[in-house]
């Protein structure tokens, strides 16, 4: 065997484990990223409720992409201005809110490269007549998310599907409450 061949064989032998190590490192990196993505998206689902309940409209809008859309069975709001306008119906920005909060649960996250989908559940709890918390509205969120250039995630589309009460029942409950006040 010539010296050149022997050197080439040695180089090949040395190269195989190195490639394997590199591949394994790449796969570890990809798996870690997947876990991080799942945790980051779970956090967005919780941040959404925190910012909404705290009337942090700026922070809430920042969870969405510039073309982000929020919709439910009544209507749709697309883009930062429209989403912010929808929020102002809840009262002034930053107002202290001790009359309700959202309990979010059951996050299911599916990551597909730079896009993801997530479903979760919400229970809107309101101050009852005697001041104690009363579950008022229950529903499901269905989200589409996109990875941003800085590595973070934003919501491109959130659909809030109310489960109970129905729209008609909800109107009755609110009317009864206003009449009682």
């Amino acid at each position, binding site marked *: 065997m010539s010296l050149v061949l022997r050197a080439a064989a040695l180089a090949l032998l040395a190269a195989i484990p190195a490639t394997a190590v590199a591949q394994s490192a790449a796969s570890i990196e990809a798996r870690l990223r997947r876990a991080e993505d799942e945790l980051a998206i779970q956090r967005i689902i919780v941040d959404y409720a925190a910012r909404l309940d705290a009337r942090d409209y700026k922070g809430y809008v920042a969870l969405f992409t510039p073309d982000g859309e929020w919709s439910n069975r009544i209507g749709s709001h697309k883009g930062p201005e429209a989403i912010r306008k929808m929020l102002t119906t809840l009262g002034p920005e930053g107002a202290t809110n001790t009359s309700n909060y959202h309990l979010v*649960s059951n996050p299911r996250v599916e990551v597909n490269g730079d896009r993801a989908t997530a479903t979760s*559940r919400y*229970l809107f709890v309101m101050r009852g007549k005697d001041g104690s918390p009363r*579950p008022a509205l229950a529903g499901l969120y269905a989200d589409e998310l996109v990875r941003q250039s800085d590595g973070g995630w934003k919501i491109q589309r959130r659909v809030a599907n109310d489960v109970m009460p129905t729209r008609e029942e909800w109107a*009755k409950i609110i009317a009864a409450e206003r009449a009682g006040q």
Partner: protein
Amino acid sequence: MMARRLLLVALLAAAPAQAQTGLTIEQRLQRVEDELAIKRILIDYSATQDARDYAGYANLFAKEGEWVNGKQVHKGRDAIHKMLVALYGAPPPGYVNVESYHISSNPRIELHGDRATAKSRHLLVWRGPDGAPLPALAGRYEDELIREDGHWKILRRVDYPVMPTPEEWGKVIQARRAAQQQEKK
């Protein structure tokens, strides 16, 4: 000599990270992935139950998986599937559940290689008299899980009702069914 001393210092500084856990980076990552996968099973359980997706629900269990509540034991996917049909009936095509959902919370996972245990809580919320959601049933789950063909599956789930008691719950269900029959008339 200086370079050697620096190398020694660097080695000493790096050593504790490995020594603390005794695990490689890959093993630590696997533990994180396992915990996420098992938490997902707890949530998929509620999702499939609430959607009346009986096949999806049964598939969360291992081949020898069992579901236990008091003296009730259902072993194997077929038996678990049958339990759901007996409990809820066969759902119509395109069924959407607007009557109830389960909140699954407080997961505590313990990993032991290809086995794991999990404790969690469930709160059944259903439609109240005015349509608003009403907490109806609260309980705990204690699970044993197994890695089967590379996927985590429930080997044994024990449902421990907290409130109401099984006797009280029987009465609640009877009253609800009677009220629903009344509404239909």
